[in-house]
């Protein structure tokens, strides 16, 4: 649905996006992650036809973003980073104006404005002047604008920034709801958000794709964490011997024992065997649990050593 091929973008001398290629399939919901200045917003601006790429091509639903820009803009709903809005307009007036320029027919306009306002919970401020709304409400007006023409593709740049915790939950479930019939690309700095709503993630760093993956793969990538008191070398050897264990690393702790990180083959739960081994050796277990690889660890790992 969204395809980027070797995109690069220079602002004068600064290279903001550097040979970036990725795709987002139809109906997928994908998180675009990266440290500040990584080029997330720039990538989204290219995909929404606001800026042309310096080199490379991109397409949305088969339409090239440069040569068929109006066709792309018709099917994309875009929420820019700082949600710029006309501050002198009233909420309903603004949405009605946006619906008109996005080509929503007169007959369905009222219904669509109503449903977008209801979805973003802004019915209460319909007649307020946008410039006087709080940040969170402005964010929600921007989101309503983004949904008003029933776009097949949503590109959201940090959609939950500035919302209160209740609203964050509401917007996440809204995005999740929407993703049933739509393709969503969202950028965010809240990794929890990606874990909660996305199927796939792309991490970019300094304009380049650092890693991409699926969240369920990340969840399957489990290991066992063990803290036990006893001779380190000996316990390590007996742990490695367990069937299904791939790697064991030990880090000595102050109490004469160690914290073990036990990598396992996917699908095998070795906790009971580990327990038995420890008991057989007469060593004391302080902690034993499975854990999956967190997105946070991965993010730090790929964006630090670059």
């Amino acid at each position, binding site marked *: 649905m969204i395809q980027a091929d070797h995109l690069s973008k220079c602002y004068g001398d600064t290279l903001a996006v550097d040979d970036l290629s990725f795709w987002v399939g139809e109906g997928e919901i994908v998180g675009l992650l990266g440290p500040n200045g990584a080029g997330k917003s720039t990538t989204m601006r290219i995909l929404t*036809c*606001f*800026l042309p790429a310096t080199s490379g091509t991109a397409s949305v639903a088969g339409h090239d973003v440069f040569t068929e820009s109006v066709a792309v*803009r018709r099917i994309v709903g875009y929420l820019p980073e700082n949600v*710029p809005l*006309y501050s002198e307009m009233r909420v309903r007036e603004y949405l009605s*104006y*946006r619906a008109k*320029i*996005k080509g929503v027919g007169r007959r369905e306009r009222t219904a669509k404005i109503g449903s977008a306002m209801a979805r973003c919970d802004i019915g209460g401020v319909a007649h307020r002047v946008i410039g006087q709304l709080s940040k969170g409400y402005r964010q929600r007006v921007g989101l309503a604008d983004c949904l008003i023409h029933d776009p097949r593709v949503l590109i959201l740049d940090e959609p939950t920034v500035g919302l209160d915790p209740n609203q964050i939950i509401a917007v996440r479930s809204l995005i999740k709801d929407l993703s049933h019939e739509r393709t969503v690309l969202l950028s965010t700095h809240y990794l929890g958000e990606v874990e909660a709503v996305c199927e796939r993630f792309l991490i970019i760093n300094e304009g380049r794709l650092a890693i991409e993956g699926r969240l369920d793969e990340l969840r399957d990538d489990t290991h066992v964490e063990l803290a036990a008191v006893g001779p380190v070398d000996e316990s390590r050897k007996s742990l490695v011997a367990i069937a299904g264990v791939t790697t064991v690393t030990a880090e000595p702790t102050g109490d004469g024992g160690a914290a073990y990180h036990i990598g396992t083959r996917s699908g095998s739960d070795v906790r009971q065997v580990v327990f038995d081994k420890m008991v057989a050796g007469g060593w004391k277990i302080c902690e034993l649990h499975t854990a999956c690889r967190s997105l946070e660890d991965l993010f730090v790992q790929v964006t630090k050593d670059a």
Partner: protein
Amino acid sequence: MTGRARQLIAVAGLIAVPAGAVLVAVGFGYESRVVLLVGAVAVVLGCVVGLFSTKVPPLLGRELAAYFQSPIAYVTATVFLVLAGVFFFSSLERYSMLSEKGQAVPGEVMGGMLWPVMVTMIFICPLITMRLLSEEVRSGTIEVLMTAPVTDFEVIISKFLAGLVFYAYLLGMTLIHVLVVWRVGNPDYGPIITMYLGLLLLGAMFLSVGLFVSAFTRNQIVASVVTFVLLMILFMIDGASGYVGGAVKDVCGFVSLYRQSDTFYKGMVDSRHVVYSLSFTGAMLFLTVRAVESRKWR
């Protein structure tokens, strides 16, 4: 509006414009005012109808609402009315000293108003156009505007038309001066009508320059000052013709907006001047569209 109705309207507009243009040419050749007028009306109506089939009406609506919701509009209107009023009454006074009461007020008096109103517009037009594009860039709303399914041309033409409507609104308020002359005398309406036509054409040129300048800066003050300087140069380039000779002199004289307008208040419509203003405005709007596109390359 359904897509089909939209298309039909667009086709009607597309037919009306060239048909009207042909009529204008025929009317011009055979010196038939009626044919010429019908042709001109057809061209204008064709353009309006054609624009209605695009995204221009909602865009224009927003621009106009923005004008009338901002205090600058009212300050601008006040300044304009005060200046135009003062100039008008001084020229009326001058005339009344020369004539006896009850005599016909020649169009020249109204025509004499053209010059001060025109000079006032050099100050007023930069105020009208300064926010058009600068403000969108400064507040970042250009990003939501340009990622909506509208073309750059639709955006620029809407902004230009909004400026022109506001300009016409200011100009319309000077009709009260015509009313005064009508009460005290018996004016010749020919020059009055051509004067307003001349002022409209001149305003279109001024506004297109202002819109072009506002595409380059996010600062409204810079936009208005640069526009003002450019308009001054365009207006007075005529003065330079005293220092140069030959073809340059002729070009300076013809390009000068001051010279452009002086036939109108004598009650004449010089077709060269009409063509000049329209093509000048068209060229500026085209350059503005290009300037907005160039934002993408910087």
